[in-house]
Protein backbone atom coordinates (compact mmCIF):
# COMPACT_ATOMS: atom_id res chain seq x y z
CA UNK A 1 0.00 0.00 0.00
CA UNK A 2 1.31 3.44 -0.79
CA UNK A 3 0.35 6.45 1.16
CA UNK A 4 0.57 10.03 0.02
CA UNK A 5 2.29 11.96 2.77
CA UNK A 6 2.84 15.38 1.23
CA UNK A 7 6.39 16.63 1.52
CA UNK A 8 7.08 18.87 4.47
CA UNK A 9 7.17 22.03 2.34
CA UNK A 10 3.56 21.33 1.43
CA UNK A 11 2.78 21.25 5.14
CA UNK A 12 4.34 24.64 5.73
CA UNK A 13 2.73 26.16 2.65
CA UNK A 14 -0.68 25.74 4.33
CA UNK A 15 0.26 28.26 7.03
CA UNK A 16 0.08 32.06 6.76
CA UNK A 17 2.93 34.24 7.97
CA UNK A 18 3.27 38.02 8.13
CA UNK A 19 7.05 37.92 8.06
CA UNK A 20 8.75 40.62 10.12
CA UNK A 21 12.06 42.28 9.26
CA UNK A 22 13.53 41.48 12.65
CA UNK A 23 14.56 37.86 13.22
CA UNK A 24 12.77 37.21 16.54
CA UNK A 25 14.92 34.14 17.25
CA UNK A 26 18.63 33.92 16.61
CA UNK A 27 21.02 31.00 17.01
CA UNK A 28 24.59 31.23 18.26
CA UNK A 29 26.50 28.68 16.21
CA UNK A 30 29.50 28.79 18.53
CA UNK A 31 27.35 27.05 21.12
CA UNK A 32 25.58 24.72 18.68
CA UNK A 33 28.84 23.32 17.33
CA UNK A 34 29.50 21.66 20.66
CA UNK A 35 25.90 20.47 21.11
CA UNK A 36 25.59 16.69 21.11
CA UNK A 37 21.83 16.26 21.32
CA UNK A 38 20.61 18.79 18.72
CA UNK A 39 17.14 18.44 20.23
CA UNK A 40 15.95 21.45 18.23
CA UNK A 41 16.52 19.62 14.94
CA UNK A 42 14.00 16.97 15.94
CA UNK A 43 11.54 18.90 18.06
CA UNK A 44 10.92 22.15 16.14
CA UNK A 45 7.53 21.46 14.56
CA UNK A 46 8.32 23.83 11.67
CA UNK A 47 11.66 22.11 11.01
CA UNK A 48 13.58 25.38 11.07
CA UNK A 49 16.84 24.04 12.54
CA UNK A 50 18.98 22.45 9.85
CA UNK A 51 22.33 20.89 10.76
CA UNK A 52 25.21 22.03 8.56
CA UNK A 53 28.23 20.00 7.49
CA UNK A 54 30.54 21.93 9.83
CA UNK A 55 28.48 20.89 12.85
CA UNK A 56 26.56 24.14 13.16
CA UNK A 57 22.90 25.00 12.68
CA UNK A 58 21.27 26.86 9.83
CA UNK A 59 18.22 28.68 11.14
CA UNK A 60 15.58 30.77 9.41
CA UNK A 61 12.99 32.50 11.59
CA UNK A 62 10.50 33.26 8.82
CA UNK A 63 8.12 30.31 9.14
CA UNK A 64 8.13 30.01 12.91
CA UNK A 65 5.03 28.99 14.89
CA UNK A 66 6.32 30.91 17.95
CA UNK A 67 5.55 27.87 20.04
CA UNK A 68 8.60 27.97 22.33
CA UNK A 69 9.58 24.32 21.88
CA UNK A 70 13.15 25.14 20.82
CA UNK A 71 14.01 27.16 23.90
CA UNK A 72 12.34 24.53 26.09
CA UNK A 73 14.42 21.63 24.71
CA UNK A 74 17.71 23.46 24.06
CA UNK A 75 20.33 22.69 26.68
CA UNK A 76 23.05 24.91 25.16
CA UNK A 77 23.70 27.89 27.42
CA UNK A 78 23.11 31.04 25.38
CA UNK A 79 22.53 29.17 22.11
CA UNK A 80 19.18 30.80 21.46
CA UNK A 81 18.00 34.32 21.89
CA UNK A 82 14.26 33.95 21.84
CA UNK A 83 11.48 36.56 21.62
CA UNK A 84 7.99 36.86 20.20
CA UNK A 85 7.82 38.82 16.95
CA UNK A 86 6.52 42.36 17.28
CA UNK A 87 2.75 42.88 17.38
CA UNK A 88 0.84 41.68 14.34
CA UNK A 89 3.80 39.86 12.78
CA UNK A 90 4.61 36.20 12.51
CA UNK A 91 2.28 33.25 12.22
CA UNK A 92 -1.47 33.73 11.74
CA UNK A 93 -3.39 30.48 12.05
CA UNK A 94 -6.71 30.45 10.23
CA UNK A 95 -8.12 27.31 11.89
CA UNK A 96 -6.00 26.55 14.96
Amino acid sequence: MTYDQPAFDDHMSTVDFEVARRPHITVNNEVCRSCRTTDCVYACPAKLFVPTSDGGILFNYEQCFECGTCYQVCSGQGALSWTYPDGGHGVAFRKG
Partner: protein
Amino acid sequence: MPEHAGPGTTSTVVAATPQRAVDVVVVGAGPAGSAAALEVARAGHSVVLLERGPYPGSKNVYGGVVYGRVLDELVPRWWEQMPVQRWVTRRSTMIMTPTQALTVDFRTQAWAGPPYNGATAHRSDLDGWLAGLAEKEGAVLVPSTVATGLLRDTAGAIVGVRTDRPDGDLTAKVVIACDGVNSFLAKEAGMFAGKPTGHVTLGVKETLRLPRSVIDERFGVAGQDGVDIEILGCTRGIPGGGFVYTNLDSLSVGVVVDPHGLAGKRLRPEELVADLKRHPAIEPLVRGGELLEYSAHLIPEGGYDTMPELVGDGFLVAGDAAAMCLAAGIWLEGVNFALGAGMYAGRAAVDALKVGDTSKTGLASYRRMLDESFVLADHRKLRRVPGLVLGQRMQESYPAMLCDLAQGLFHVDNPQPKPGLLKLVRRTLKRHGIRTRDVVSDALTGVRSFG
Protein backbone atom coordinates in the same frame (compact mmCIF):
# COMPACT_ATOMS: atom_id res chain seq x y z
CA MET B 1 14.75 46.91 29.11
CA PRO B 2 14.29 44.68 26.08
CA GLU B 3 11.46 45.89 23.89
CA HIS B 4 10.43 42.36 22.94
CA ALA B 5 8.64 39.69 24.93
CA GLY B 6 10.54 36.54 25.78
CA PRO B 7 12.25 34.56 28.52
CA GLY B 8 14.70 37.40 29.17
CA THR B 9 12.31 40.23 30.01
CA THR B 10 12.76 42.40 33.05
CA SER B 11 10.43 44.87 34.74
CA THR B 12 10.69 48.63 34.53
CA VAL B 13 10.37 50.65 37.71
CA VAL B 14 8.19 53.71 37.23
CA ALA B 15 7.14 56.51 39.53
CA ALA B 16 3.51 55.49 39.73
CA THR B 17 0.86 57.94 40.80
CA PRO B 18 -2.45 56.60 42.06
CA GLN B 19 -3.85 57.84 38.74
CA ARG B 20 -3.77 54.98 36.21
CA ALA B 21 -4.63 54.89 32.51
CA VAL B 22 -7.15 52.10 33.04
CA ASP B 23 -8.52 50.00 35.87
CA VAL B 24 -7.40 46.66 34.43
CA VAL B 25 -5.07 45.46 31.68
CA VAL B 26 -5.59 41.89 30.52
CA VAL B 27 -2.73 40.41 28.50
CA GLY B 28 -3.77 37.82 25.92
CA ALA B 29 -7.11 37.49 24.14
CA GLY B 30 -7.39 33.72 24.52
CA PRO B 31 -10.29 32.17 26.46
CA ALA B 32 -8.83 33.18 29.85
CA GLY B 33 -8.21 36.78 28.84
CA SER B 34 -11.54 37.32 27.15
CA ALA B 35 -13.45 35.86 30.12
CA ALA B 36 -11.50 38.11 32.49
CA ALA B 37 -12.07 41.23 30.38
CA LEU B 38 -15.76 40.36 30.04
CA GLU B 39 -16.29 40.22 33.80
CA VAL B 40 -14.36 43.43 34.47
CA ALA B 41 -16.16 45.36 31.74
CA ARG B 42 -19.53 44.03 32.83
CA ALA B 43 -18.95 45.46 36.31
CA GLY B 44 -18.43 48.87 34.72
CA HIS B 45 -14.64 49.21 35.00
CA SER B 46 -12.30 50.26 32.22
CA VAL B 47 -10.34 47.35 30.76
CA VAL B 48 -7.90 46.94 27.89
CA LEU B 49 -7.43 43.47 26.35
CA LEU B 50 -4.01 43.22 24.68
CA GLU B 51 -3.37 40.61 22.00
CA ARG B 52 -0.09 40.17 20.16
CA GLY B 53 -1.70 38.54 17.11
CA PRO B 54 -3.54 40.46 14.40
CA TYR B 55 -6.84 38.89 15.55
CA PRO B 56 -7.83 36.72 18.52
CA GLY B 57 -6.98 33.10 17.81
CA SER B 58 -4.28 33.88 15.24
CA LYS B 59 -1.55 32.52 17.53
CA ASN B 60 -3.58 29.75 19.10
CA VAL B 61 -3.91 26.04 18.39
CA TYR B 62 -5.76 23.30 20.21
CA GLY B 63 -7.25 19.88 19.49
CA GLY B 64 -10.41 21.01 19.43
CA VAL B 65 -13.16 20.23 21.78
CA VAL B 66 -14.64 22.89 24.06
CA TYR B 67 -16.63 21.92 27.12
CA GLY B 68 -19.03 24.82 27.34
CA ARG B 69 -20.87 24.44 30.62
CA VAL B 70 -18.63 26.95 32.38
CA LEU B 71 -20.11 29.52 29.98
CA ASP B 72 -23.49 29.14 31.76
CA GLU B 73 -22.25 31.76 34.20
CA LEU B 74 -21.05 34.15 31.51
CA VAL B 75 -23.48 33.95 28.59
CA PRO B 76 -27.08 32.80 28.93
CA ARG B 77 -27.95 30.26 26.22
CA TRP B 78 -24.38 30.39 24.94
CA TRP B 79 -25.02 27.36 22.74
CA GLU B 80 -27.22 29.44 20.47
CA GLN B 81 -24.32 31.81 19.72
CA MET B 82 -21.09 29.83 20.01
CA PRO B 83 -19.39 29.19 16.63
CA VAL B 84 -19.64 25.40 16.85
CA GLN B 85 -18.59 22.91 14.19
CA ARG B 86 -20.18 19.79 15.68
CA TRP B 87 -21.59 18.73 19.05
CA VAL B 88 -19.75 15.68 20.36
CA THR B 89 -22.19 12.79 20.89
CA ARG B 90 -19.68 10.00 20.54
CA ARG B 91 -16.47 9.69 22.47
CA SER B 92 -13.95 6.93 21.91
CA THR B 93 -10.79 6.00 23.73
CA MET B 94 -8.49 3.94 21.58
CA ILE B 95 -5.36 2.16 22.69
CA MET B 96 -3.12 0.92 19.96
CA THR B 97 0.04 -0.82 18.91
CA PRO B 98 1.34 -0.50 15.34
CA THR B 99 -0.92 -3.34 14.20
CA GLN B 100 -3.72 -3.47 16.80
CA ALA B 101 -6.38 -1.19 18.24
CA LEU B 102 -8.77 -1.64 21.13
CA THR B 103 -11.53 0.94 21.45
CA VAL B 104 -14.00 1.85 24.14
CA ASP B 105 -16.71 3.66 22.28
CA PHE B 106 -19.43 5.60 24.01
CA ARG B 107 -22.29 7.54 22.50
CA THR B 108 -25.27 9.34 23.95
CA GLN B 109 -27.94 11.50 22.40
CA ALA B 110 -28.08 13.34 25.74
CA TRP B 111 -25.15 15.38 24.40
CA ALA B 112 -26.98 16.26 21.18
CA GLY B 113 -29.17 18.95 22.72
CA PRO B 114 -28.89 21.86 25.18
CA PRO B 115 -26.90 22.29 27.32
CA TYR B 116 -24.72 19.79 25.42
CA ASN B 117 -21.34 18.51 26.58
CA GLY B 118 -18.41 19.00 24.19
CA ALA B 119 -18.29 20.88 20.90
CA THR B 120 -15.68 21.06 18.19
CA ALA B 121 -14.77 24.60 17.08
CA HIS B 122 -11.89 26.35 15.33
CA ARG B 123 -9.84 28.63 17.55
CA SER B 124 -10.02 31.62 15.23
CA ASP B 125 -13.83 31.40 15.39
CA LEU B 126 -14.04 30.62 19.10
CA ASP B 127 -11.48 33.15 20.33
CA GLY B 128 -12.93 35.84 18.07
CA TRP B 129 -16.41 35.19 19.45
CA LEU B 130 -15.24 35.29 23.07
CA ALA B 131 -13.26 38.52 22.59
CA GLY B 132 -16.30 39.98 20.84
CA LEU B 133 -18.41 39.27 23.94
CA ALA B 134 -15.93 41.24 26.07
CA GLU B 135 -15.94 44.09 23.55
CA LYS B 136 -19.74 44.22 23.61
CA GLU B 137 -19.56 44.84 27.36
CA GLY B 138 -17.11 47.69 26.82
CA ALA B 139 -13.66 46.08 26.93
CA VAL B 140 -11.20 47.62 24.49
CA LEU B 141 -9.46 44.97 22.40
CA VAL B 142 -6.03 46.08 21.19
CA PRO B 143 -4.66 43.53 18.72
CA SER B 144 -1.21 43.42 17.07
CA THR B 145 0.31 44.57 20.36
CA VAL B 146 2.79 42.69 22.52
CA ALA B 147 3.12 43.23 26.26
CA THR B 148 6.91 43.23 26.47
CA GLY B 149 7.29 43.52 30.22
CA LEU B 150 5.80 44.69 33.50
CA LEU B 151 5.79 48.12 35.09
CA ARG B 152 6.39 48.21 38.83
CA ASP B 153 6.39 50.87 41.49
CA THR B 154 9.33 51.31 43.80
CA ALA B 155 7.83 48.83 46.27
CA GLY B 156 7.66 46.14 43.57
CA ALA B 157 3.88 46.16 43.06
CA ILE B 158 2.81 45.72 39.46
CA VAL B 159 1.27 48.89 38.07
CA GLY B 160 0.97 48.18 34.36
CA VAL B 161 2.65 46.78 31.27
CA ARG B 162 5.06 48.03 28.64
CA THR B 163 3.94 47.34 25.06
CA ASP B 164 5.70 47.48 21.72
CA ARG B 165 3.61 50.42 20.55
CA PRO B 166 5.07 53.92 20.46
CA ASP B 167 4.45 55.47 23.89
CA GLY B 168 3.47 52.00 24.81
CA ASP B 169 3.45 52.10 28.62
CA LEU B 170 -0.02 51.37 29.95
CA THR B 171 -0.62 51.83 33.66
CA ALA B 172 -3.39 49.95 35.45
CA LYS B 173 -4.58 49.10 38.94
CA VAL B 174 -4.58 45.39 38.12
CA VAL B 175 -2.73 43.38 35.45
CA ILE B 176 -4.20 39.98 34.62
CA ALA B 177 -1.66 37.77 32.82
CA CYS B 178 -3.49 35.42 30.43
CA ASP B 179 -0.57 35.16 28.03
CA GLY B 180 -0.62 31.40 27.62
CA VAL B 181 1.79 28.54 28.12
CA ASN B 182 5.11 30.38 27.82
CA SER B 183 3.91 32.66 30.59
CA PHE B 184 6.69 35.23 30.30
CA LEU B 185 4.90 37.82 32.45
CA ALA B 186 4.32 35.50 35.42
CA LYS B 187 7.93 34.35 35.15
CA GLU B 188 9.10 37.94 35.12
CA ALA B 189 6.91 38.64 38.15
CA GLY B 190 8.64 35.79 40.01
CA MET B 191 5.48 33.71 40.37
CA PHE B 192 7.28 30.52 39.34
CA ALA B 193 10.06 30.86 41.91
CA GLY B 194 10.80 27.41 43.34
CA LYS B 195 8.35 25.66 41.01
CA PRO B 196 9.32 22.86 38.66
CA THR B 197 9.53 24.23 35.11
CA GLY B 198 9.72 22.67 31.68
CA HIS B 199 6.57 20.56 32.03
CA VAL B 200 5.34 21.11 28.51
CA THR B 201 4.06 18.82 25.81
CA LEU B 202 4.19 19.67 22.12
CA GLY B 203 0.97 19.35 20.15
CA VAL B 204 1.03 19.12 16.36
CA LYS B 205 -2.06 18.94 14.27
CA GLU B 206 -3.29 18.63 10.72
CA THR B 207 -6.67 19.97 9.68
CA LEU B 208 -7.88 17.78 6.82
CA ARG B 209 -10.73 18.71 4.52
CA LEU B 210 -13.33 16.00 3.79
CA PRO B 211 -16.90 16.38 2.56
CA ARG B 212 -19.43 16.58 5.36
CA SER B 213 -21.33 13.53 4.09
CA VAL B 214 -18.13 11.48 4.03
CA ILE B 215 -17.40 12.41 7.64
CA ASP B 216 -20.98 11.52 8.63
CA GLU B 217 -20.65 8.12 7.02
CA ARG B 218 -17.17 7.23 8.26
CA PHE B 219 -17.86 8.29 11.83
CA GLY B 220 -21.47 7.10 11.98
CA VAL B 221 -23.08 10.40 12.83
CA ALA B 222 -25.70 12.69 11.33
CA GLY B 223 -26.75 16.32 11.46
CA GLN B 224 -24.40 18.35 13.61
CA ASP B 225 -23.36 15.39 15.78
CA GLY B 226 -19.64 14.80 16.08
CA VAL B 227 -16.96 12.45 17.35
CA ASP B 228 -13.96 12.76 19.64
CA ILE B 229 -11.31 9.99 19.57
CA GLU B 230 -8.45 10.05 22.08
CA ILE B 231 -5.60 7.65 21.44
CA LEU B 232 -2.89 6.09 23.61
CA GLY B 233 0.04 4.07 22.34
CA CYS B 234 0.57 5.92 19.06
CA THR B 235 3.77 7.82 19.90
CA ARG B 236 6.36 5.05 19.61
CA GLY B 237 7.01 4.97 23.30
CA ILE B 238 7.62 8.71 23.64
CA PRO B 239 5.23 10.01 26.33
CA GLY B 240 2.16 11.42 24.61
CA GLY B 241 -1.04 10.54 22.80
CA GLY B 242 -3.10 11.26 19.74
CA PHE B 243 -6.50 12.57 18.73
CA VAL B 244 -9.02 12.69 15.91
CA TYR B 245 -11.90 15.17 16.07
CA THR B 246 -14.66 15.82 13.57
CA ASN B 247 -15.40 19.34 12.41
CA LEU B 248 -18.26 20.01 10.01
CA ASP B 249 -16.31 19.39 6.82
CA SER B 250 -12.81 18.73 8.12
CA LEU B 251 -11.00 16.53 10.62
CA SER B 252 -8.44 17.54 13.23
CA VAL B 253 -5.78 14.83 13.53
CA GLY B 254 -2.75 15.19 15.72
CA VAL B 255 -0.43 14.02 18.43
CA VAL B 256 0.81 15.49 21.67
CA VAL B 257 4.29 14.37 22.58
CA ASP B 258 7.08 15.08 25.06
CA PRO B 259 9.43 17.25 22.95
CA HIS B 260 12.42 16.09 25.02
CA GLY B 261 11.81 12.52 23.85
CA LEU B 262 12.05 13.11 20.10
CA ALA B 263 15.80 13.52 19.52
CA GLY B 264 16.58 10.32 21.45
CA LYS B 265 14.45 8.34 19.00
CA ARG B 266 15.46 10.42 15.97
CA LEU B 267 11.81 11.18 15.33
CA ARG B 268 10.05 14.37 14.31
CA PRO B 269 6.53 15.32 15.37
CA GLU B 270 5.03 15.36 11.88
CA GLU B 271 6.30 11.80 11.40
CA LEU B 272 4.24 10.71 14.38
CA VAL B 273 1.16 12.32 12.83
CA ALA B 274 1.93 10.56 9.55
CA ASP B 275 2.28 7.30 11.50
CA LEU B 276 -1.09 7.81 13.09
CA LYS B 277 -2.74 8.62 9.75
CA ARG B 278 -1.31 5.38 8.33
CA HIS B 279 -2.50 3.20 11.20
CA PRO B 280 -5.01 0.58 10.00
CA ALA B 281 -7.59 1.83 12.52
CA ILE B 282 -7.21 5.49 11.49
CA GLU B 283 -6.38 5.39 7.77
CA PRO B 284 -9.95 4.51 6.70
CA LEU B 285 -11.21 7.52 8.65
CA VAL B 286 -8.82 10.14 7.24
CA ARG B 287 -8.23 8.71 3.74
CA GLY B 288 -8.21 11.35 1.01
CA GLY B 289 -8.34 14.28 3.42
CA GLU B 290 -6.78 17.41 1.94
CA LEU B 291 -4.40 19.29 4.22
CA LEU B 292 -5.92 22.67 5.06
CA GLU B 293 -3.52 23.70 7.81
CA TYR B 294 -0.56 22.30 9.70
CA SER B 295 -0.10 23.81 13.15
CA ALA B 296 1.66 23.38 16.47
CA HIS B 297 1.59 24.74 20.02
CA LEU B 298 2.85 23.86 23.47
CA ILE B 299 0.62 22.54 26.26
CA PRO B 300 1.38 22.88 29.99
CA GLU B 301 1.00 19.31 31.17
CA GLY B 302 2.42 19.31 34.68
CA GLY B 303 -0.87 19.95 36.45
CA TYR B 304 -1.42 21.14 39.99
CA ASP B 305 2.10 20.65 41.30
CA THR B 306 3.61 22.89 38.64
CA MET B 307 1.23 25.84 39.04
CA PRO B 308 2.80 29.20 39.90
CA GLU B 309 1.72 31.62 42.63
CA LEU B 310 -1.56 33.00 41.32
CA VAL B 311 -1.84 36.35 43.10
CA GLY B 312 0.66 39.19 43.51
CA ASP B 313 0.43 42.89 44.28
CA GLY B 314 -1.64 44.25 41.40
CA PHE B 315 -1.23 40.97 39.52
CA LEU B 316 -3.21 37.82 38.72
CA VAL B 317 -2.33 34.82 36.53
CA ALA B 318 -4.95 32.69 34.76
CA GLY B 319 -5.29 29.87 32.25
CA ASP B 320 -2.35 28.16 30.54
CA ALA B 321 -0.11 30.92 31.91
CA ALA B 322 -0.82 29.34 35.30
CA ALA B 323 -0.53 25.75 33.99
CA MET B 324 -4.27 25.22 34.47
CA CYS B 325 -4.58 22.90 31.49
CA LEU B 326 -5.56 19.30 32.15
CA ALA B 327 -3.50 17.25 29.72
CA ALA B 328 -3.44 13.68 30.81
CA GLY B 329 -3.85 11.08 28.11
CA ILE B 330 -7.54 10.75 27.43
CA TRP B 331 -8.24 14.20 28.90
CA LEU B 332 -7.24 17.28 27.01
CA GLU B 333 -9.12 20.15 28.59
CA GLY B 334 -7.77 23.65 28.87
CA VAL B 335 -10.25 26.03 27.32
CA ASN B 336 -12.85 25.35 30.01
CA PHE B 337 -10.27 25.79 32.79
CA ALA B 338 -9.01 28.99 31.15
CA LEU B 339 -12.56 30.35 30.88
CA GLY B 340 -13.27 29.54 34.51
CA ALA B 341 -10.01 30.96 35.82
CA GLY B 342 -10.31 34.09 33.67
CA MET B 343 -13.84 34.66 34.92
CA TYR B 344 -12.75 34.39 38.57
CA ALA B 345 -9.71 36.59 37.96
CA GLY B 346 -11.99 39.24 36.48
CA ARG B 347 -14.32 38.99 39.46
CA ALA B 348 -11.43 39.20 41.93
CA ALA B 349 -10.17 42.34 40.21
CA VAL B 350 -13.65 43.82 40.51
CA ASP B 351 -13.80 42.91 44.25
CA ALA B 352 -10.44 44.59 44.78
CA LEU B 353 -11.37 47.72 42.83
CA LYS B 354 -14.57 48.01 44.84
CA VAL B 355 -12.72 48.25 48.14
CA GLY B 356 -9.82 50.22 46.67
CA ASP B 357 -7.21 47.62 47.59
CA THR B 358 -5.51 45.92 44.65
CA SER B 359 -2.64 44.53 46.69
CA LYS B 360 -2.14 40.81 47.08
CA THR B 361 -4.50 40.91 50.07
CA GLY B 362 -7.16 42.83 48.17
CA LEU B 363 -6.99 40.34 45.29
CA ALA B 364 -7.07 37.24 47.51
CA SER B 365 -10.63 36.30 46.56
CA TYR B 366 -9.23 34.91 43.28
CA ARG B 367 -7.53 31.99 44.97
CA ARG B 368 -10.61 31.37 47.12
CA MET B 369 -12.96 31.28 44.13
CA LEU B 370 -10.62 28.92 42.28
CA ASP B 371 -10.34 26.63 45.29
CA GLU B 372 -14.08 26.38 45.61
CA SER B 373 -14.68 25.73 41.91
CA PHE B 374 -13.84 22.97 39.46
CA VAL B 375 -10.71 24.82 38.37
CA LEU B 376 -8.55 23.86 41.32
CA ALA B 377 -10.77 21.07 42.68
CA ASP B 378 -10.30 19.03 39.50
CA HIS B 379 -6.61 19.79 39.33
CA ARG B 380 -6.03 18.84 42.96
CA LYS B 381 -7.92 15.59 42.50
CA LEU B 382 -6.09 14.69 39.31
CA ARG B 383 -2.62 15.86 40.33
CA ARG B 384 -1.11 12.39 40.03
CA VAL B 385 -2.72 11.57 36.71
CA PRO B 386 -0.17 13.24 34.40
CA GLY B 387 2.59 11.14 35.96
CA LEU B 388 0.48 8.01 35.67
CA VAL B 389 -0.63 8.53 32.09
CA LEU B 390 2.73 9.71 30.81
CA GLY B 391 4.62 6.91 32.58
CA GLN B 392 6.19 4.07 30.64
CA ARG B 393 3.61 1.45 31.63
CA MET B 394 0.64 3.51 30.48
CA GLN B 395 2.47 4.58 27.34
CA GLU B 396 3.88 1.26 26.13
CA SER B 397 3.25 -1.80 28.27
CA TYR B 398 -0.47 -1.43 28.96
CA PRO B 399 -1.61 -0.62 25.42
CA ALA B 400 0.33 -3.59 24.05
CA MET B 401 -0.82 -5.84 26.88
CA LEU B 402 -4.50 -4.89 26.55
CA CYS B 403 -4.46 -5.26 22.79
CA ASP B 404 -2.91 -8.73 23.13
CA LEU B 405 -5.42 -9.62 25.81
CA ALA B 406 -8.28 -8.67 23.50
CA GLN B 407 -6.67 -10.56 20.66
CA GLY B 408 -6.33 -13.59 22.94
CA LEU B 409 -10.01 -13.39 23.88
CA PHE B 410 -11.31 -13.08 20.36
CA HIS B 411 -8.81 -15.30 18.60
CA VAL B 412 -10.25 -18.70 17.67
CA ASP B 413 -7.46 -21.21 17.75
CA ASN B 414 -9.26 -24.49 17.01
CA PRO B 415 -8.56 -27.27 17.62
CA GLN B 416 -6.95 -25.69 20.74
CA PRO B 417 -9.63 -25.16 23.42
CA LYS B 418 -10.24 -21.57 24.55
CA PRO B 419 -7.93 -20.52 27.39
CA GLY B 420 -9.50 -19.50 30.71
CA LEU B 421 -9.64 -15.75 31.29
CA LEU B 422 -7.39 -15.70 34.35
CA LYS B 423 -4.83 -17.83 32.64
CA LEU B 424 -4.95 -15.55 29.61
CA VAL B 425 -4.47 -12.48 31.80
CA ARG B 426 -1.56 -14.01 33.68
CA ARG B 427 0.08 -15.20 30.51
CA THR B 428 -0.31 -11.79 28.80
CA LEU B 429 1.02 -9.86 31.82
CA LYS B 430 4.01 -12.14 31.93
CA ARG B 431 4.72 -11.85 28.23
CA HIS B 432 4.77 -8.06 28.58
CA GLY B 433 6.93 -8.14 31.68
CA ILE B 434 4.27 -6.38 33.76
CA ARG B 435 4.20 -7.13 37.49
CA THR B 436 0.84 -7.58 39.20
CA ARG B 437 2.15 -5.28 41.94
CA ASP B 438 2.51 -2.40 39.43
CA VAL B 439 -0.93 -3.01 37.97
CA VAL B 440 -2.44 -2.87 41.45
CA SER B 441 -0.53 0.28 42.38
CA ASP B 442 -1.48 2.04 39.12
CA ALA B 443 -5.08 0.96 39.56
CA LEU B 444 -5.06 2.40 43.08
CA THR B 445 -3.66 5.71 41.85
CA GLY B 446 -6.41 5.69 39.25
CA VAL B 447 -9.14 4.87 41.76
CA ARG B 448 -7.88 7.52 44.20
CA SER B 449 -7.83 10.11 41.43
CA PHE B 450 -11.14 9.33 39.85
CA GLY B 451 -13.04 7.64 42.68
